[in-house]
């Protein structure tokens, strides 16, 4: 059975046939257990609702492989974890491939075709690579253990804001046990692997082909030297090897068998989740399918198979928990715990042979695994959770679909109910008559074109706040002046414009959203224009990303990129550079949602301002707290608001003069927070448009009106 004309390792050397057979039997048993586990998981996903993914499966697969190989999503904002996980991942993959290679030859190629390659130089290099892989694996694991055990990271704290002490699922010790079991098991498998290697070397030290080439397995060789120094002889080595072989083998087989039943399954579920991801998950919410009877998610089986897969992909990394603005101010919401609760619920109900009765599948409530109303209403739909998740869990659509059910049942704060009724009646959240929508423009020294009546090049979609809120009306007036001075041919829809619906949709009132879309599209279709510009990021997001689902695709940009082009082409010129020290707050719906980070900064620089970034900026910008309909829901008395949290972050910038925003809701929330945090007088909150006015003083406008 052994041919030693080239250096190699003889498998099962000196094992009695019975033991080999036993090993294979256990191997098949492990595969069987593994297979059954996979079957249960797939059966669970299939119990969810159907979903058709866009795009070709092949391109999804290749993209997923690229993401996984780059490990970019794991390294974002946590380079330490990124580096350690890369080590673990590559170490594990190499070791796995190594075993697979051996199996390929030993069980398939050699017996069937007589091909042998695992020998000689190949074998030696192979051994070296695997030894290094093992070091990587163990090194990565060791770092993770230190990170988990000693670094006391807030995101790894399993305390949950959506339960109180005394609730049956408040404390989750089994999470911690599983985390540590996973780390230790892999570590022991890796460690025993080296010990095994070393003990084999000691056992076969008399054989020159083994002993002379031992430094191709450097770690094993080092340990072998140590064992020999400790007095282990060849026979002892042989015994140790035999014992360790079985220990290591059984542990590894058990590990593989249990993959579908433990956290280890994230290897597959994360890959699956990444493959199924929707890069526009939070920016473009799903419509309610025609066939669907009741809107939203009421039962666990109302979730799609992809959402159920999302629940399993979560590795409890805690990044969404850390990023969430609601959680940061003590609201009873942690995106992580929404996912984990639902996961436990899905496992408890969908993994049994017989599907439980419908009444037991209700995910709303306060029982273990359910999601409470207060949790769902705390969400700002800012998508910080979706954006940072390394395994593409899409929390926001899950929360919105749960909200749809609450809205249908009328389970909302009375102020929110009133606002929705007001929007239905008047088309705006202020309750003002439609006719007053364009009133802010009446005081301007020129007439703003009515885009319903005459063709314009640029249709300016103003939005509710910029039309009706007195503070924001001032900004609208300035913007109109600037456009006029730049000789832009623009117009607005006056009464034809309604609330664009972004937040109504995110509240979960899909019916009202459709009414608003229809009204706006009717107005837009009746107008003649080349492009749409908006000063409201919320309107920008929904018209850009969601209106096309209703058959209405229009070119639209946020004013910041439009204005940048006006500067570039000389239509607007800065003649009084501002020397302010500023910081820029990326609005959620412009920045994180639509990657519009650079244009506002470029404009600020053009205005002559110095920009000092806050710690949480660009994709990691911290929501002002108004999104998701929260501007229509009163905050709990006495609690910190996200806007206050954010202003305090800005206040830490020494010498800060201006906090710059480019969203009407941001302006409202932050001016309020400036006062309530006691920072009034230290710096001011200004819309970028207002700074533009300062840098392009009105004296110049005399010429424009001449």
């Amino acid at each position, binding site marked *: 059975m052994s041919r030693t004309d080239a250096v190699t390792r003889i498998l099962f050397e000196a094992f009695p046939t019975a033991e080999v057979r036993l090993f294979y039997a256990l191997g098949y048993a492990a595969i069987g257990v593994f297979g059954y586990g996979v079957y249960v998981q797939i059966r669970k996903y299939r119990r969810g609702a159907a979903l058709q993914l866009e795009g070709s499966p092949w391109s999804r697969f290749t993209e997923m492989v690229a993401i996984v190989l780059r490990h970019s999503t794991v390294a974002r904002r946590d380079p330490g974890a990124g580096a350690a996980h890369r080590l673990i991942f590559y170490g594990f993959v190499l070791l796995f491939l190594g075993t697979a290679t051996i199996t390929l030859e030993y069980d398939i190629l050699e017996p069937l075709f007589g091909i042998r390659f695992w020998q000689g130089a190949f074998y030696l290099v192979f051994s070296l690579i695997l030894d290094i892989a093992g070091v990587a694996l163990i090194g990565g694991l060791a770092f993770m253990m230190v990170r988990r055990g000693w670094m006391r990271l807030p995101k790894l704290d399993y305390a949950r804001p959506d339960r109180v002490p005394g609730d049956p699922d408040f404390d989750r010790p089994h999470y911690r046990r599983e985390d540590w079991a996973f780390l230790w098991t892999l570590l022991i498998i890796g460690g025993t692997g080296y010990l095994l290697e070393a003990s084999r070397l000691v056992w076969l030290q008399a054989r020159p082909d083994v002993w002379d080439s031992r430094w191709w397995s450097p770690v094993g060789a080092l340990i072998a030297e140590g064992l020999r120094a400790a007095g282990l002889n060849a026979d002892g080595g042989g015994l140790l090897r035999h014992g360790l072989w079985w220990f290591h083998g059984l542990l590894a087989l058990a590990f593989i068998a249990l993959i579908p039943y433990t956290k280890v399954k994230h290897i597959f579920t994360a890959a699956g989740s990444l493959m199924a991801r929707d890069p526009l998950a939070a920016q473009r919410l799903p419509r309610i399918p025609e066939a669907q009877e009741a809107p939203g998610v009421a039962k666990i089986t109302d979730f799609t198979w992809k959402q159920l897969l999302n629940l399993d992909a979560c590795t409890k990394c805690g990044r969404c928990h850390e990023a969430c603005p609601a959680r940061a101010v003590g609201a009873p919401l942690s995106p992580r715990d929404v996912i984990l609760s639902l996961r436990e619920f899905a496992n408890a109900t969908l993994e049994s042979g017989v599907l439980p009765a419908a009444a037991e599948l209700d995910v709303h409530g306060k029982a273990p695994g359910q999601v409470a109303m207060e949790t769902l209403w705390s969400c700002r739909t800012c998508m910080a959770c979706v954006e940072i998740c390394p395994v593409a869990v899409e929390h926001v659509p899950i929360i919105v679909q749960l909200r749809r059910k609450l809205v249908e049942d009328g389970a909302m704060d*009375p*102020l929110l109910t009133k606002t929705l009724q007001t929007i239905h009646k008047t088309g705006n959240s202020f309750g003002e008559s439609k006719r007053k929508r364009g009133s802010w423009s009446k005081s301007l020294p020129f007439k703003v074109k009515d885009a319903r009546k005459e063709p314009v090049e640029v249709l300016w979609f103003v939005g509710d706040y910029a039309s009706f809120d*007195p503070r924001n009306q001032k900004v609208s007036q300035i913007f109109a002046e600037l456009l006029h001075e730049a000789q832009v041919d623009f117009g607005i829809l006056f009464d034809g414009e309604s609330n664009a619906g972004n937040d109504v949709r995110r509240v979960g009132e899909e019916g009202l959203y459709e009414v608003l879309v229809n009204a706006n599209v009717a107005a837009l279709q009746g107008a003649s224009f080349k492009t749409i510009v908006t000063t409201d990021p919320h309107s920008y997001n929904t018209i850009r990303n969601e209106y096309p689902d209703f058959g209405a695709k229009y070119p639209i940009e946020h004013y910041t990129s439009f204005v940048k082009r006006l500067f570039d082409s000389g239509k607007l010129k800065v003649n009084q550079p501002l020397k302010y020290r500023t910081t820029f707050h990326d609005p959620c719906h412009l920045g994180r949602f639509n990657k519009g980070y650079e244009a506002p900064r470029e404009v600020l620089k053009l205005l002559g301002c110095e920009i000092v970034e806050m710690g949480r900026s660009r994709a990691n910008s911290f929501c002002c707290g108004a999104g998701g309909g929260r501007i229509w829901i*009163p*905050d*709990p*008395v*006495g609690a910190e608001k996200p806007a206050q949290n954010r202003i305090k972050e800005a206040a830490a910038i020494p010498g800060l003069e201006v906090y710059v925003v480019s969203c009407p809701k941001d302006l409202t929330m932050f001016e309020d927070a400036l*006062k309530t945090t006691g920072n009034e007088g230290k710096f001011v909150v200004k819309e970028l448009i207002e700074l533009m006015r300062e840098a392009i003083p009105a004296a110049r406008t005399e010429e424009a009106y001449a």
Partner: protein
Amino acid sequence: MSGVLIVAEQRRGELRPVSLELISAAQGLRRAGDEVAVALLTTAPERYIDALKLAGVDEIITVKVRAAEFDPDTFESAIGALIAERHPEVVLVAHSVDSFGYAAALAAKLGLGFATDVFKMERIEGELVATRGGYGQKVNVEVDFPGRSTVLLALRGNVFKPPEAAASPKVSAFAAPAAASRSMAREFIELSAGDDIDMTAAEFILSIGRGIGEEAKVAQFRELADAVGATLGCSRPIADAGWLPKSRQVGQSGKTASACKLYIAMGVSGAIQHLAGMKHVTTIVAVNSDAEASIFGVAKYGIVGDIFEIAEELRRHF
């Protein structure tokens, strides 16, 4: 048909002041020879005779009925019979919770000319014309009653001033026919005061309304009221939402600011029910961001602006 018949109101042993306003209102309708009679229905109506001996009253009619407190069937039956006997040209009642319970029924049954919440009455070319509000009190509406020999009008409170001088009207008793009543009055219930505040005694009130937006903002105004030395009051939506106790509510179904001399209304739009409780105050200052708010119609001074900014600035002075 001639003369004016007034139905006074009493509750829990007290004559309701609005009854006296009806007396003044009636004087403008007098034609030569017309008499103004005031009727009062209760178990012991004689108790109220002295209170009704006022200038402008020609006759006090006591109507003894089986119900001590207001009862619709009793009132409709007794007043119906009184109208049938006396044939007045005009019957005046207050536009009050009691009259909500019977006036329209009485008018419908007897085919009387009928209008409610009337704040002006006049004769135009001999015809009786009443003026009331329309479209949320944003317009005035003049109505008349062609072909109706008797007209029943429910008058808005706090419009007419009660008479001051005394007089000696004649007193008569009217035997109302026995009537079966289909409702039975039980007890009166005072809403728990909440914080024992007596809005009716406060001389300086600062009221907040829907304009404050959310409960968290109440604290700022409570603090402001304390600082300026005013009693904090509110309009109905604030009390209904539970942000302030009901005892703080000023208005028709809340308290009347009877003793108030200075009333600052912040974020209060001026719905008619709220005005009912405070529009009589000598000095009213309205602060509201809506220049069209009805409150500016009754206020002496108005500030169109952001109530939070004004509140903050005002706080600095105290």
